[in-house]
């Protein structure tokens, strides 16, 4: 797909985002909600990393913490050579043009009292020295890029449809020529018919502008469409990080397996043969995760070690990382698809 040898644009290293919990009359610090707990990965320049997981697993928090919309509790987020997590507020502000975000709810994320041109133009005023006319040209250019009619420049957000609003959100994100964009469920709030348009727009823009995306979604089929690699998150931790095709063909982590079993399978033949794995129980509270593997409470393949020891995310196959005790050794394990498959022989994995 994309250039696998490209340098890493984003490096996330041991990122933790804990939200403190206060309780009691004196509001004592009684614990933390571990929304993101020790997450590490990299994104290569020009790549799209999909981030999937069920609601509440911390994927949006991870996206926001990476852009330091939250102050991370620990860890490093190096974007384009600078550790975002440690920049001073002013330096961070200066850095903002490099990294942008497209938000989930295009209605809520646009200031209702600002017109389209001021929404798109505001970062230009703040971060560039453009004259009014130049700025206006740039706004029109951006509107063209995202497919918005120039006549709409003075309208307010509520006058647009959901898809149009998301285009505004994208144009706004593009205004300062960012390198890295976190797309936080950008299509979740849109009609199905519009979703594809927006995703295609994002892909087109990536091709044209060489953007790097972190594409957060719970829509696995859309991620399959856009992402190069996919990270699967469960309860604040990445459980599997694999190239897209490998993952979809042969998920390694039991959670990824369960998750993917729920995806609509376009191939009817395959759909007939596969079985859906239903997980039992509820997602544990991130304030009080299990002692061992986070997934141990619901894992169909749980065994003793899972209950006591948290598995680390380790490379188990070339290009594939999994955090599961089943994969700690290189030997194939009972019940697993196991083995040292390369990216090329993924089809062989489907032998069940």
């Amino acid at each position: 797909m994309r250039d696998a040898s490209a340098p890493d644009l984003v490096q996330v290293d041991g990122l933790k985002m804990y939200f403190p919990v206060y309780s009691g009359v004196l509001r004592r610090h009684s614990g933390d909600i571990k929304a993101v707990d020790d997450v590490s990965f990299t994104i290569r320049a020009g790549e799209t990393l999909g981030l999937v997981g069920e609601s509440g697993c911390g994927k949006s928090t991870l996206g926001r913490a990476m852009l330091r919309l939250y102050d991370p509790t620990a860890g490093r987020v190096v974007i384009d050579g600078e550790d975002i997590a440690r920049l001073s507020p002013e330096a961070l502000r200066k850095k903002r043009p490099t990294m942008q975000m497209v938000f989930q709810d295009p209605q809520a994320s646009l200031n209702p009292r600002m017109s389209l041109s001021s929404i798109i133009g505001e970062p230009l005023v703040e971060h560039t020295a453009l004259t009014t006319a130049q700025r206006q040209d740039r706004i029109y250019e951006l509107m063209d890029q995202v497919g918005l009619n120039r006549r709409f420049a003075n309208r307010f957000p509520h006058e647009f449809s959901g898809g149009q609003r998301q285009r505004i959100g994208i144009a706004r994100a593009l205004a300062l020529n960012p390198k890295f964009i976190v797309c936080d469920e950008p299509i979740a709030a849109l009609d199905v018919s519009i979703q594809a348009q927006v995703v295609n727009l994002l892909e087109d823009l990536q091709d044209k502008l060489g953007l790097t995306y972190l594409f957060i979604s719970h829509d696995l089929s859309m991620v399959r469409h856009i992402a190069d690699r996919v990270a699967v998150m469960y309860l604040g931790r990445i459980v599997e990080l694999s190239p897209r095709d490998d993952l979809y063909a042969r998920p390694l982590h039991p959670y990824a397996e369960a998750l993917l079993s729920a995806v609509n399978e376009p191939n009817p033949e395959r759909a007939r043969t596969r079985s859906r794995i239903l997980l039992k129980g509820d997602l544990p509270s991130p304030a009080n995760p299990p002692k061992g593997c986070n997934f141990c409470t619901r894992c169909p393949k749980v065994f003793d070690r899972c209950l006591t020891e948290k598995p680390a995310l380790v490379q188990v196959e070339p290009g594939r990382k999994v955090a599961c005790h089943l994969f700690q050794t290189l030997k194939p394990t009972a019940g697993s698809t196991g083995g040292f498959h390369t990216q090329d022989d993924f089809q062989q994995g489907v032998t069940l």
Partner: protein
Amino acid sequence: MLTFTLRRLLLALPTLLFISLIIFLLVDLAPGSPMSEIPLTVPPEVRQKMIEALGADQPVFVRYILWLRQFFWVEPATLIDGWFGLNLAGNEQRILSWQSRSPVFTVIGQRIPQTLTVIGTAYLLGIAIAIPIGIYSAYRQYSFFDQLGTLVAMIGFSVPTFFSGTLFIIIFAVWLHWFPTKYDTTLLVTDWPSFVLQLKQMAMPVMVLALANAAAISRYMRSSMLENMGQDYVRTARAKGMTERVVVLKHVLRNSLIPVVTVIALGIPSIFGGAIITENLFGVNGIGAALIGAIHANDLPMVQTLAFIFAVLIVVFNLIADVLYGLLDPRIRYE
């Protein structure tokens, strides 16, 4: 917007007429007599004659119709006569106060200036104090400042003005001798010393009322700010790399002000309504003091007219608040 305003005004007319009738009946049915303040040394026959001379013995509907005519025709005509030297009103009777035998509107005219200066200043000052407090309290939610602001607001809410007023009098007038306790309505501001005098005599009532106003408005401001602070567009603004100043003052504040402005606009009739207790306590003798005095004396024309004017003001400012909302919030459009 114009059609909306006109339609609302038209709809308001029957409402107001109905309100005026209700007020009239309520005031009339209230127990008491305009003669109750007269000493017992005045014999009953004389009282009866006095009541007749006031017209207070007429049936209630005759008095209501007469009042309507006086309010909607004689008084405006008298006003126009006064401006252009005409004689539209002729010799028709204006609305007379039973207590003072002066035209009610003359009394209101005498009262409005001090009410507007004192209560109006207190309102503006209250807003000026409340908005920054509300903004900062919300921005630093649960900080020491916020807790302090909450405490002050609680005090402002819960301490009645007669208590804070008396406390201020004892501290600032009796102990410190800084300010006078009685407001001099005859003081004319002509030069610097008289201006200073005016400021001094306004200081205490304004402080008392501003505290009460600020308490309420700062809470509105704070909650409105908090509501907007968590909105996605604020995150967007931060993600755009806006400074905190721009984020708070431009994005959050502007959106948060919409409901607050409405609340402020809705509160304006209360400026005209005066502050009964505070006015009485400091001898400001504005509209509020006039109303309570009239109620005590069963001065029906005065009470009726004032109550009706308040009703009109409330209807008008409700409309103004709606229109303002439409102007401030592009999402609202009135057809």
